[in-house]
């Protein structure tokens, strides 16, 4: 008589979670708090804590706090998360999720996990330039965080790439630090708030180069120059710093079979459900209208409740 083969999962002695939450920004952390209160067996996997909230300056529109800084709100989020003793895999990056039967496997740079449901709350990250020299010179004169690294460029000539609010904000911060700032803006006009535009125009150490595009970054160990072009041709600018401020893109590339919109945001329905049953998404990585900390938090709670209902419907768990 043939004996029954144990399933591959059983052989690996791998536990199957009720839920895996990817990301620990406002959406992921709020989902975690709700999942903990529903006593789900779950895991949180995230590269960082706080997501974009941690990078925010002053926050005046998160109910309950008339004023709080991004790092302080992140600290509050983390305290709330830790209160429940949640299993958190920090500094871990999800590379792929795939569903087979009723099980979703989550592959990371450190391991493999199995779950019945997943909430993708991986947020957004800085958009990269995609020009030669960008990778080599990251942290060697090129940075995506003016607030963090700006102070190291005192007395230097630098370039800010971009033409929206974040670019203007970076340029304004740098007017007090750097010797001279070039704003390299691809469109015909800067697009930020009027109040910031006026301040930029008043600054004596700023040159605005509209209709210009960066094509390359060069240097030795550190950045020494960039190449820019417009319709008249190409030229080189001697700069020692490059601040990239060209917006954000969703961290959704690991979710290969999950349906996305043209901006690569994950499409969700009113219950945060994606096109794959059991896979939910919340916050800035999704196509939710408006990207705000408080909206991301609310979406996280909705996604957790939806995942709980899904599990109950399928009679999983206890």
């Amino acid at each position: 008589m043939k004996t029954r083969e144990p399933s591959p999962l059983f052989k690996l002695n791998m536990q199957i979670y009720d839920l895996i939450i990817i990301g620990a920004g406002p959406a992921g952390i709020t989902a975690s708090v709700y999942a903990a209160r529903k006593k789900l067996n779950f895991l949180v996997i995230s590269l960082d804590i706080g997501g974009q909230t941690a990078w925010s300056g002053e926050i005046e529109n998160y109910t309950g706090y008339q004023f709080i800084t991004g790092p302080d709100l992140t600290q509050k989020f983390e305290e709330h998360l830790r209160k429940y003793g949640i299993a958190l895999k920090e500094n871990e990056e999800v590379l792929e999720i795939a569903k087979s039967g009723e099980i979703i496997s989550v592959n990371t740079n450190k391991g493999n996990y199995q779950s019945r449901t997943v909430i993708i709350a991986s947020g957004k990250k800085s958009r990269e330039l995609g020009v030669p020299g960008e990778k080599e010179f990251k942290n060697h004169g090129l940075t995506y965080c003016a607030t963090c690294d700006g102070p190291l460029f005192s007395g230097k000539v630098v370039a800010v790439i971009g033409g929206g609010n974040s670019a203007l904000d970076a340029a304004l911060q740098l007017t007090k630090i750097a010797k001279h700032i070039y704003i390299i803006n691809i469109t015909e006009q800067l697009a930020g708030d009027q109040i910031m535009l006026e301040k930029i125009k008043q600054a004596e150490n700023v040159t605005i180069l509209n209709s210009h595009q960066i094509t390359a970054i060069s240097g030795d160990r550190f950045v020494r120059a960039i190449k820019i072009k417009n319709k008249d041709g190409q030229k080189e600018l001697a700069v020692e710093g490059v601040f990239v401020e060209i917006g954000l893109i969703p961290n959704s590339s690991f979710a290969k079979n999950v349906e996305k919109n043209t901006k690569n945001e994950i499409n969700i329905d009113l219950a945060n459900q994606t096109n794959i049953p059991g896979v939910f998404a919340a916050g800035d990585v999704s196509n939710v209208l408006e990207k705000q900390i408080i909206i991301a938090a609310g979406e996280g709670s909705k996604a957790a409740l939806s995942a709980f209902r899904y599990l109950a419907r399928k009679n999983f768990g206890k």
Partner: protein
Amino acid sequence: MAKSIIVYSTPACPWCIRVKQFLKENNILFLDWDVSVDKVAADEMVKKSGQMGVPVLDIDGEIIVGFDKDKIKQLLNL
């Protein structure tokens, strides 16, 4: 003997805040050098780490760039 630890950071960078939080939570004493105001410390940081991103940690001469929790734990036997 306690290890000598220097943290090079700027005031508004989230990873700098987190790395210092982490050291404090573990009752680790460290020198906190703000490279946004201290030009000498800034130059020293760039020279030691060969790059310009913050935070940078110097743990008894071992240089860590960024909040590399695993490496910090390993060097401090946490």
